[in-house]
């Protein structure tokens, strides 16, 4: 067994863990702190991972920083909800507003690989019109990206992550067959399909980032069902087992347990490097470019915390939009009890999906949503029973006893951007002495109308398959977006279509923060596709002398 991944960094001394083989190492290049590397990337998740790999493969010197540890899944990961809390960002954050957000495991990872180490692997493309939701659909904001360009990047991302899925996807423009065949459907997924068929709407096996056949050293998924608590077999195609090893092989350095607290900018208005704490000591890494890829809370927190005399509002924030337009996705659910034994703990939790209401516009609200089959493990399940129904005492025990007969459907819905939903710095500090994020959130009228619609639809589906004791979980959200939106000009956005900040030409943002709208599907594949595109664009900009 390897040493405690939290006790000391593992990626040091010219080597990094080879996560595919117990006890093994990969040779890793290291850069000196006073050598200005071409790129420092802060964060190694769905945005940082592909960018670090793409830049290293293009010949740039790159260091990827992550505040979390460098796990070896084959050795470090238990089959246990509580133990695996170690994957999450559990440092303190303050939540307020009319609908305070649940953070931690719901949306925030803290490890090399970021949230992809615990994500549910659902890998979906945006509906094309969402890239022009303002001009094509009348809400939100347009993206400075073209869906036809994105379609190509999605295909590349799906190949890079060996996505398993159906041969023919039922919605949207044609796309290639998924690289790996769809997974077998479990009982919970089967009930979603039967419900959709009874309602006359489409469904499909969910495109998932866990392999259905061997890929390299990844074995096929064994249907443990602990996906959201880390995959202990490496079937899951997280950044930790895909782009990060590729990045190291291409010459990138990864610094684990390295929390970046401030970006330094010089008098000329360019970023010069990052201040970070590793092994209890504050240090400074020089860099020619800095990319922030910390996701929609840590990214604005770092930009705001980097304020200096010339940038009193924080870096890249002449628009005043850094931290604003935070979006989550509505994640309400309906649950019921079947005569059948469902045993929803087996397999990935969301093996089937319907995107019907993402593509049908006969609704009285903006935006769309999908819903997916569910498989909460016992602690998540008791959290739902207690929060949605207020149960405790013997009444709670009686309901929990029905665990193996439960079935459920959960939405992922598009919440609209609103500047009042935001990330700011609180006066409280964390273990590094850095100001913690204060996260303010409230639902709008459109958000509430969508949730009401989705709850009715999901309840109808469960009733059509014979579920009884049906109840609703009316208050839950997941995923993050916004807070450093991309756009068409410096007044109304933070970065351009290349994820480059308008204000500081060598400061970039590459994660879900750049989303102008959230869309009605899980965001990770879009983040990854944009990161791959950004690496390609930076290479092109360098070639034409525009870096």
């Amino acid at each position, binding site marked *: 067994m390897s040493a405690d991944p939290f006790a000391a960094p593992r990626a040091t001394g010219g080597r990094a863990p080879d996560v595919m083989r117990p006890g093994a190492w990969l040779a890793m290049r290291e850069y000196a702190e006073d050598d200005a590397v071409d790129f420092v990337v802060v964060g190694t998740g769905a945005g940082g991972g592909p960018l670090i790999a793409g830049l290293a493969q293009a010949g740039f010197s790159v260091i990827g920083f992550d505040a979390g540890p460098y796990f070896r899944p084959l050795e470090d990961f238990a089959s246990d909800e509580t133990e695996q809390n170690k994957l999450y*960002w559990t440092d303190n954050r303050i939540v307020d507003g009319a609908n305070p957000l649940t953070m931690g495991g719901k949306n925030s990872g803290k490890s090399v690989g970021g949230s992809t180490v615990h994500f549910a692997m659902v890998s979906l493309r945006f509906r094309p019109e969402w890239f022009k939701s303002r001009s094509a659909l009348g809400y939100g904001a347009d993206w400075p990206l073209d869906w036809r360009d994105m379609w190509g990047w999605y295909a590349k991302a799906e190949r890079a992550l060996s996505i398993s899925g159906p041969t023919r996807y039922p919605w949207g423009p044609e796309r290639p067959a998924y690289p790996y065949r769809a997974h077998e459907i479990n009982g919970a997924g089967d009930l979603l399909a039967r419900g959709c068929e009874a309602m006359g709407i489409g469904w499909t096996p969910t495109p998932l980032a866990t392999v259905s056949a061997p890929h390299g050293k990844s074995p096929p998924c064994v249907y443990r069902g602990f996906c959201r608590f880390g995959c202990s077999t490496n079937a899951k195609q997280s950044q930790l087992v895909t782009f990060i090893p590729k990045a190291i092989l291409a010459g990138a350095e990864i610094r684990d347990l390295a929390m970046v607290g401030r970006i330094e900018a010089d008098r000329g208005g360019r970023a010069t490097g990052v201040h970070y704490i590793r092994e209890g000591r504050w240090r400074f890494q020089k860099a020619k470019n800095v990319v922030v890829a910390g996701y929609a809370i840590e990214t604005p927190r770092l930009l705001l915390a980097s304020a200096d005399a010339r940038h009193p509002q924080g870096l890249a924030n002449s628009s005043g939009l850094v931290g604003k337009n935070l979006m989550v996705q509505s994640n309400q659910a309906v649950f019921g009890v079947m005569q059948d034994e469902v045993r929803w703990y087996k397999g990935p939790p969301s093996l089937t999906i319907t995107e019907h209401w993402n593509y049908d516009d006969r609704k009285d609200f903006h935006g769309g949503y999908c819903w997916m089959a569910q498989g909460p493990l016992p602690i998540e399940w008791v959290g739902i029973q207690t929060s949605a129904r207020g149960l405790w005492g013997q009444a709670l025990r009686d309901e*929990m006893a029905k665990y193996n007969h439960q079935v459920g459907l959960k939405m992922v819905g598009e919440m609209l951007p609103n500047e009042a939903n935001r990330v700011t710095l609180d006066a409280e500090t964390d273990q590094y002495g850095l100001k913690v994020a204060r996260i303010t959130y409230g639902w709008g009228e459109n958000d509430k109308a969508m949730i009401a619609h989705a709850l009715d639809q999901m309840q109808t589906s469960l009733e059509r398959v014979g579920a009884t004791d049906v109840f609703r979980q009316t208050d839950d959200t997941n995923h993050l977006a916004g807070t450093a939106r991309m756009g068409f000009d410096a007044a109304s956005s933070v970065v351009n279509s290349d994820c480059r900040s308008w204000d500081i030409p060598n400061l970039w943002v590459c994660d879900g923060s750049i989303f102008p709208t959230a869309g009605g599907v899980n965001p990770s594949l879009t983040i990854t596709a944009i990161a791959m595109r950004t690496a390609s664009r930076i290479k092109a900009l360098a070639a034409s002398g525009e870096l």
Partner: protein
Amino acid sequence: MSGRYPGYDVEAKRDTPSWNRATREAIDRRLAVPREPRFFTADEWTTLEAVCDRVMPQPADRPKVPLPAYVDQKMADDIQDGYRYAVLPPQGEAWRRGLKALDQEARSAFGGAFDTLLGERQDELLRRAQTGALTGEAWGDMPCKAFFEHRLIPDITHAYYATPTAWNEIGFGGPASPRGYVRLALNRRDPWEAVEAAPGEETKARRDNSRVR
């Protein structure tokens, strides 16, 4: 109490391919939780024990899952959730204030310490906390409803459903690394999953569950 899954013991799979080394070590640590308080005072601990017995009543025919010990461990080691409602103080302070306030509410409403009251009266006070109806001065600026929903209930119930005892009661397969599962369809069971007792078939289920490995 036999329950739905008589004789099912998820720990019988400890030395099978369903429990990898990291899992065995994690569960061993959990079951070895210190039983004496490190964080709470003796008075707080007494109230906490009574609260746990009402929130998660446990059958008399087996040793109790030591729920106060898990709450104490979370506070003593400051194991955080990753967020805090702005209306609540840090978790340890919230628990201290909440337990003291519940005890004071017990004394003013029923003339005795919380742990000495009848179960129905303890439940009555907890229900009032749940609905935000307790306003004694010991709460200070901490809303009793937020404390109940976001601190008291999750800390106790999450600890309970993190234990093999709870998994046995609900027929959860438990740890599954690296073996996983093969039979995913409705009404299908792998030989290493719990057998649910049909009405009147408890004896057969108990025999079948004794072979679950």
